[in-house]
Each structure stands twice: as structure tokens, then as C-alpha cells.
């Protein structure tokens, strides 16, 4: 039964990674560039929720809303600094720019929020449901529910609404999208801030799940999001979500056989192997994205 419980933990962590990977692949799609700032965006989302809970005392839905907005605004700033000038330049320039930006945000956060790890206030008790021999906590159900609702909303947004279709067209082919009258500049900006906003919500969920926040959490988290997105295929939002889920499950099953300190090693080894065998990702199409 231990395996089943680990599996559930893995799925739960995996859906958070999946949410981040969706946001990540959205950004990578519309800008055609990758970012190293994503972990910091997630961190800002987590801190927003921390201050919402501890200072404002609001409930979870407004906290997630605040997280979304704060991360989205940060996304606009990142867009102005790191992408806008460099959309047509060699890729590595904006990449280095995002590395600089992530150092900047992380260290500013250490000054503004303080360097110590902060414990989240308890919002949910330790309640759980017993299903036969396994336990699922309320928190896990909440996380699963939030991610499922969000993915359904996103699917609707991408498939049915006009701006969603504009986003998809821009990520498929910028020039062709411009020819048929899509405002590429503003669509890129919108896509970027939505992607960052999703990262913010993922940050809120992560903060609840680990029940602490710290300004340096962004480093590993950003790499996880990146790995998940690349694993599933950077051009494929659904694939990226699958990649996130896979990494979450692998990590939690892997630590049954190894020490918990090696948890991140599992994720990265897995990622490197996939990259070497199938560089376009597990679910990506060949030769679509050239980064």
C-alpha cells in the first residue's frame, strides 16, 4: 500500500509540475525563446499567497487570484526586459538576459522578503479521507481539483475564444499569424503574462503543499518546470503537462529505492536520457521547435 500512497503523492506533485510546465510551454511557444526566470515567477506567486494568508487573512481562491495577478505583472516586466528587444536576435542573448533577470529577482526577493524560510499558516487541518487502506488528504484533493479545473478552462480558452486561437497561431508561425491580421506583439505579451500567471498559481499550490516558502526555492523549481516542459515537448502544451505528471510520479516512486537527497538527481537523469534519445520530447513532433 506504500506504493499506492507514493503514487498518489507523485500524482499530486506531478499535477503542480504539470501546471508549471503548461505555463512554461505557453511562454516558449509564443516567444520562441526559453526562460530561466520561471522559478522566480513561481516563487513570487508563493510569496504573494503567503502574505495574503498571513496579513490579509483571505481564503484560498482570492489568494490564487492575487498570485496569478502578481506573477502576470512580473511576466510583463520580464517581457519588456528580456524578450521584446531580442525576438529577432540570436536566441542565446535573451537566454542570458533571463539568467540575469532570475538572479536579480531572487536577490531582490531575499532583501524584500528576508532570507529565512517561512512556514505557511495552516489553512487546512490534517484532515484526510480513508479509501480502504490509502489516505488522501484534503489538500491533495484540493490541488488535484484546482489543476483539473484550470486545465479545462485553459482548453476552452485555447480552442473556443478568439484570443486563445490568436495565441496558438502565434506559437505555430509568427509570420503567418501576422499576415492574417493577428497583433503579434500584444499576443506575445498576453501569452507571456498568462504563462507567468499560471506559474504564480502553481507557486501558491506548492507553498500549500510544502507548507513553507523561501526566496531561494525558485532555482530547483524552475529547473523542474523546464525539465517537465522539455520532457513532454516544448511545442505541445498537453504533452508538457504529461511530462510534468511523469516527473512527479518518477520522483516519488524513485525515492522509495534511494535516499530523499537524490530526488532531484532522478528528475535530471531522466530528463537527460530523454533529451539524448528523443530531443524533441516524449510527445513533441520532430523538427517543430528550433531553439
Amino acid at each position, binding site marked *: 500500500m506504500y506504493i499506492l500512497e507514493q503514487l498518489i503523492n507523485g500524482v499530486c506533485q506531478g499535477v503542480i509540475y504539470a501546471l508549471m510546465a503548461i505555463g512554461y510551454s505557453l511562454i516558449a511557444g509564443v516567444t520562441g525563446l526559453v526562460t530561466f526566470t520561471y522559478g522566480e515567477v513561481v516563487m513570487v506567486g508563493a510569496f504573494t499567497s503567503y502574505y495574503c494568508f498571513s496579513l490579509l487573512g483571505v481564503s484560498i481562491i482570492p489568494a490564487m487570484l492575487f498570485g496569478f495577478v502578481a506573477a502576470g505583472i512580473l511576466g510583463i516586466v520580464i517581457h519588456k526586459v528580456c524578450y521584446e528587444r531580442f525576438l529577432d536576435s540570436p536566441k542565446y*542573448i535573451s537566454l542570458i538576459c533571463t539568467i540575469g533577470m532570475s*538572479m536579480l529577482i531572487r536577490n531582490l526577493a531575499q532583501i524584500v522578503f528576508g532570507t529565512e524560510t517561512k512556514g505557511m499558516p495552516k489553512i487546512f487541518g490534517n484532515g484526510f479521507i480513508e479509501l480502504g487502506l490509502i489516505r488522501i488528504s484534503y489538500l491533495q484533493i484540493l490541488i488535484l481539483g484546482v489543476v483539473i479545473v484550470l486545465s479545462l478552462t485553459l482548453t476552452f480558452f485555447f480552442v473556443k475564444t478568439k484570443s486563445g486561437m490568436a495565441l496558438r497561431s502565434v506559437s505555430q508561425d509568427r509570420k503567418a499569424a501576422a499576415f492574417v491580421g493577428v497583433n503579434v506583439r500584444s499576443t506575445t505579451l498576453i501569452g507571456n503574462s498568462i504563462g507567468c500567471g499560471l506559474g504564480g498559481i502553481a507557486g501558491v499550490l506548492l507553498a500549500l503543499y510544502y507548507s513553507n516558502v523561501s526566496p531561494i526555492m525558485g532555482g530547483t523549481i524552475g529547473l523542474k518546470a523546464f525539465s517537465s516542459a522539455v520532457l513532454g515537448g516544448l511545442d505541445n502544451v498537453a504533452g508538457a503537462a504529461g511530462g510534468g505528471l511523469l516527473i512527479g510520479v518518477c520522483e516519488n516512486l524513485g525515492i522509495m529505492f534511494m535516499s530523499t*537527497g537524490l530526488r532531484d538527481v532522478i528528475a535530471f537523469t531522466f530528463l537527460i536520457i530523454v533529451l539524448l534519445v528523443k530531443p524533441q520530447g516524449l510527445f513533441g513532433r520532430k523538427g517543430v521547435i528550433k531553439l
Partner: protein
Amino acid sequence: MRSKIANQAKKLIDKNKLYILIASIIILGMLPVIIREDYTRSIMIKILLYVMLASSLNIINGYTGQFNIGHAGLYAIGSYTAGILVTTFGWSFWILLPVSGMVTAIFGFLISIPTRKLAGIYLALVTLGFSEIIRLICLNWTELTGGPMGIKNIPRPIFFGATIKEPIQFYYIILVLAIVTILLMYRAIHSRIGRAWISIREDQTASRFLGVNINRLKSTNFAFGAFFAGVAGCFSAYYYQFISSDMFTLDEGFNILAMVIIGGQGTLIGPIIGSVIVNMITEVFRFVSEYRLITYAVLIIIMMWVRPQGLAGASDSVFATKRRKRSRRARLHRRRLTE
């Protein structure tokens, strides 16, 4: 457009390159005699150590245009090789310098084999993951690496019976190492292999057409760069007498990357300038150490906005987005042809 004075200064420097080089080496050799505080000497040692590390990264990033951002991993391998071999087998410092270099070079070669086909960002991701994996293994393999405690009590190196323990002695060792490193790099870059590396950076497809064996040269390049990172790692293990896994975080890798980017990619002088600037910033902002990394970050972003090839980077390479317009000679030649 360059002004006339700058052009003439450049010509003057080009003409007297050798004398300037000899003069600066003499000045560097004299410096610790003039400066007597041990603290200042330790900063100079640090600058030279990072000159080696940044130059070795510049060989990989600046000359073949591969994108390695996990240089701290290679540095860690060099340090741990030296630390483990000296504490368990008691090997001497002078043997360990080339040995840790070779071990690191082998690791560099091994990473480069599967990543030859990956370009740009995917290569960056693999090197980043590699660096993090190395750090986590060092942190968790307690029997071999001491785990979170690190390796302590690394003995002092012995030079003809005399124990080296003063900063001034370490200064001369690292000075010689750095000069030898730069000389070897100079020789490599101005050889056939070096020209082939640059051709790969400028246009991979074209150089393949010209018969350059891209796969082999990329691996050689990675191993060559890794070698010097390993030597630097060995030196730092002896110098600090202590290594632990939190000396080799991703931030350390970004730190080295920042030196290469700020100083300039694709020239030998670039990483040297970068190391001096970044270490100076570290010292200037020492009393407000949290603003130090912010300064790097802002510098990196400004550098990308204004001058992507770095302060002293190669202006006639792919790194510069705005290449210099045709040179004066080419313009004259063209005019002659049209008339």
C-alpha cells in the same frame, strides 16, 4: 564608428604586444612584493583563480559557440578528485594538478559525446542538469565525498621540501598556472584546431562543408576547456584546504558565466577583464553582500542590451549583433573595383 585616436591606440597596442605582455607579467610578479596585506593578496589569488575558470569556460562558450552553463560541475570534479586522492592516497600536489585536470577532461569528453547533436538551449539544459547532479552526488555520497561535511584538512602542498602556506607563495603558483593556461590557450586557438573551432562557432554548416570534423572537434574543445577547470579546482582544494558541495552550486556556475559574459566572449583578454571586474564588485559591495549579486545581474542585463559580445569580446563574431560595417580597406577595395 571608431574614432581616430582609438584606432591609433589599437595599432600601437598591436605593434608592441609582446612588450606589453612582458611588462604586465613583471608587474603581476612584483605586485605581492608591493602590497603587503594578506587580505589584498588573497583577493588577487581569487582573481587569478577565476581567470583560469572563466578562461576555461570561454574556450567552450566563446570559441565553439557551445552553451555550457554548468561549469561549476566541472570545477567540482577537479576539486573533489584532488581532495579525495590526497586524503586517501596522499598523492602530491604537483602530480594531482595534471591528474585532476585529466579526470575532469575525461568527464568533459563524456558529456560532450551525447550532447554533440544537441544545439543551444538543449545543450545548456543538459550541462545545467549535469552540474546539479554532480553537486547532489557529492552531497549524498557520504563515504566518498564526506557528504554535507565536505572534505576537511587537505594538507599543504610541498615544494622541494618547503611547505607552502603563505598567501604570497600561493599567489606565485596560481600566477604561473594562469599564465601557462593562457599561453596554452593562445597556442591552441592560433593553431589549425583553434581556427576550426572558430569556424564551427561562426557557421556550423559551412564548416562541415569545408571538411571540418565537427563532432570530434566539439568533444576535443569541451575536454580542453574542462581540463583547465579541473586544474583550477585542484588548486582551490589545496588553497582553501576544504571543499564541500555548497561551493559548487548553480550560482557559482552563473558567477563564472557572468565573468565571461561581462568581460567578453571569444577573446583571451575578455575573461581576464571579467574576472577582475566581478571580483572587484564583490569587494566593493562586501559590506552589503546582498547587493553584490544584484549588481552582477544588472550588469549582465545591461551588457546584453548594449554589447552582447561583452566588454572586450570578439566584435567580428556571431556574438555581436551589430557587426562593424565593412572595414576601411574593404571599402577602398570596393571603390577601386567600381571605378
